[in-house]
């Protein structure tokens, strides 16, 4: 019985946010310049159906053409998919991999100045194991110990590359919020605030009031400077309040760990009170109870297919959640929140076909395009469309089943995983590197 593992996973790997890969990420190696053609594949585009016996032409790491036939230079490298399925790379919209023991700065319930990039262990083999399961992009979030956690990073699973090459260029910044049992448990167990849901939201409201004051003091100062007031004194720079101010300025995608229907509504009210938008509720196991409320606010969910019962606020989870919410207009992603599940998100997505009758394309979208939207990179990845990054999985077997496994995984047109290779199966990595 893996009780301790389960408890650890659920209580302490609880979820949240990001900073800006985009601020710091400079792609240090230039994308591969060679032309590549993948031919003889069943191309599952996600946006415009499946193409039997299809081909994809990759130029400089981007999709240059897709169809039954493509015009590519004769010099292009050809990958014959042998009739296998080709999907976009899987996108995990909720992960804590490569963050080691540094997931939760559980010393204060408000820590928006934490940058997950500072903890990012780009050599963590979990990145490789998820890659071998078809994952090409992940959102690495702060944990859910804090009502307002840190700022996330978005990575591409280019295992074997250097750190900065793994950061997703141009990805927007996300921040992780949490609610419910985890902050209660962490701080309540120390007899500190918050230990109730009232406390949770009071802590949050107080933080945003401080941020408003901070913004006002800078606005006042800037106005004085503009007026030529030479006696104007600059307010103190405060990293924490600056980060919260960026939330209020709409510069961060707000990703909220939240389980219960009533808490979705409280979170939405809070966002309205302070004027920010919520990008997605994560876990969101009770989305099926209030799907219209989420759809009306254009809030997505990043949820599990069928995990339940690991704690009180997961007791009303049902495996039909994803599809019931989707049918009411909610954008749904299936995510891992687990180094284990990250390796087989295709199976998790396939469960939505059984529980509620999602179509193949809807199911696939939950681990590709919808996940990309939650992260804010749906213009770059998540479907097989011209102009997007050439991030693909070629599958042994039908991907939406129990018995499929990636044969090859490409990122930016480059093969990063190849099951047929010995050792780890990675062209760009060998032990001792």
């Amino acid at each position, binding site marked *: *019985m*893996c*009780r*301790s593992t*389960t*408890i650890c996973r*659920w*209580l302490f790997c609880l979820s949240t946010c990001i900073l800006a890969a985009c601020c710091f990420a400079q792609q240090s190696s230039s994308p591969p310049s060679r032309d590549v053609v993948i031919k003889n594949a069943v191309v599952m585009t996600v946006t415009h159906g499946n193409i039997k016996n299809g081909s994809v032409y990759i130029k400089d790491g981007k999709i240059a053409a897709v169809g039954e036939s493509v015009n590519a230079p004769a010099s292009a490298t050809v990958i014959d998919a042998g009739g296998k399925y080709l999907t976009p790379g899987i996108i995990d919209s909720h992960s804590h991999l490569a963050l080691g023991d540094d997931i939760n700065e559980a010393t204060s319930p408000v820590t928006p100045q934490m940058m997950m990039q500072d903890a990012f262990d780009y050599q963590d*083999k*979990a990145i*490789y*194991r998820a890659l*071998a*399961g078809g994952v090409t992009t992940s959102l690495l979030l702060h944990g859910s110990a804090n009502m307002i956690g840190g700022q996330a990073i978005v990575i591409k699973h280019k295992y074997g590359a250097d750190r900065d090459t793994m950061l997703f260029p141009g990805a927007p910044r996300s921040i992780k919020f949490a609610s419910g*049992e985890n902050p209660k448990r962490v701080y309540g167990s120390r007899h500190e605030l918050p230990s109730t849901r009232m406390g949770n939201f009071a802590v949050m409201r107080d933080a945003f009031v401080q941020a408003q004051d901070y913004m006002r003091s800078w606005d006042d100062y800037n106005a004085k400077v503009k007026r030529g007031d030479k006696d104007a004194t600059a307010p103190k720079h405060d990293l924490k309040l600056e980060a919260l101010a960026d939330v209020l300025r709409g510069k961060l995608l707000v990703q909220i760990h939240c389980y219960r229907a009533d808490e979705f509504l409280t979170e939405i009210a809070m966002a309205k009170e302070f004027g920010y938008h919520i990008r997605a509720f994560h876990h969101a196991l009770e989305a*099926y*109870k209030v799907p219209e409320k989420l759809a009306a606010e254009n809030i997505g969910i990043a949820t599990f297919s*069928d*995990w*339940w*019962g*690991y*704690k*009180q606020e*997961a*007791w*009303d*989870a*049902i*495996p*039909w959640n994803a599809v*019931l919410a989707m049918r009411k207009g909610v954008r749904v992603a299936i995510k891992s929140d687990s*180094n*284990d599940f990250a*390796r*087989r998100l295709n*199976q998790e997505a*396939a*469960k939505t*076909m*059984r529980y509620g009758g999602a179509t193949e394309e809807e199911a696939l979208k939950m681990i590709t395009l919808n996940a990309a939207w939650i992260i804010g990179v749906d213009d770059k990845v998540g479907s097989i469309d011209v102009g997007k990054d050439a991030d693909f999985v070629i599958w*042994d*077997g039908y991907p*939406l*089943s*129990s*018995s*499929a*496994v990636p044969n090859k995984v490409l990122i930016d047109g480059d093969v990063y995983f190849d099951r047929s290779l010995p*050792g*780890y*199966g990675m062209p760009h990595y060998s*032990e001792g590197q």
Partner: protein
Amino acid sequence: MKRFSVASSQFSEGSWGAGTPAREALAAARIPVAVAFVWLALFGVRASAQPQPIVLKGGKLLTISHGVIENGALVMEGGKITAIGTAASVKAPHNAKVIDIGGMTVYPGLIDSETSLGLTEISAEAMTNDRIELSDEIMPHMHVYDAFHAESELIPVTRLNGITNAIVAPDSEDTLPGQDSFVQLAGASASEMLLVRDIAMPLNFTGTQRRNESFEKMKFPGTRMGMAAQLRQAFLDAQDYQQKAAEYEKKKADAERDKKSPPSAPKRDLKLEALLPYLEGKKTIVLAAEGASDLQTAVGLAREFNLKFVLNHISHSRSVLDYVASLKVPAIVGPIYETPKDYERFDAVYSLPAELYKRGVKIAFASFDAHNARNLPYQAGFAISFGLPPDEALKAITLNAAEIWGVADQLGSLDTGKVANVVVATGDPLDVKTDVKRVFIGGQEVPMTSRQTRLRDEYAAK
């Protein structure tokens, strides 16, 4: 003693060698009657419970034992399977309810070889958990049947996915955490569901049984040396206890013969008493190890005391798979989702079932879970991607499991005479998209409802 030998026969199934009935009878005679009652098997489905014969007609029958029957028919009567064959060849009994299952796939109820069903409700809520007694490492006198919660909401959720039987085991943070029971996931009460009480006993040697949270809090056993020494002492103590009991029986017999006053009985010790059937080789130890070194230490201990055992987990023992095969015992595998070590390839654990199968090891899958036990078949399905033949994958959650647990005369395949635990689904039992439509346990159709379906229906209607 008659009932006792019935219990013993549960363990003579399978090909991996049990004691002969004669030897078992001999051994039984040496065991105090009180002990015999403790491990008395209570296997038996209330045959009278099924009111009307049922015929499933027209589906594809995966018999497990004798291939696939297309357009088949299966008759359930008195809780048992009474006929199986092609639809044309099977005659429906008088008064039978005939259910057309054309286009469906039919297979025996799935068996999960380790769960904590009935011992937990909400993982993080301590008061809803009875998973392990952590006060000591040697707790063979803990019986999961004393805690088994028949009304658990997890049980309907699990059986709706076609899992009809399971081993219920305590958690693994003690070396000897207690004894497992074999359950049926439907029944009027716990006693009806607990088919075989104390069917086996886990012996865990994975390292997580150490009490070494920190130097400040370390207590014995803080190391693997400590674990091994403690186990050895426990079995030695049990041997002494056994010998004293035998001496007492002899003295008592002598006293009776000589018409003298009887000797005073030795003090009973439930903990040591619980180890006796295992020392006698009459019951099975479920020997859990992960890595190769732990595996060999654990096997060494088991051999030192002539314990009969099956293997459990062995997830990181790839370097010694030939050694594993040479032990000639079955292995419970899983969860195959266990993360490989950093030095291992991504598929090191996924491919373990196939590698063991190729070496002739009989395998069965376990979920090692409760809430997610319903996903047992998908684990078997995934193993196919790594070389396990599909038939063998299905066998590893049906007939193999029944054989390993000594219940193959009753469960594990669609054969005449077996308990009518039968599943009707839309397709391949191992695929994640397959929807289970009907579940029969003991020939009775189980309502396809759970707390989760009720929540679904309540909110979908809004």
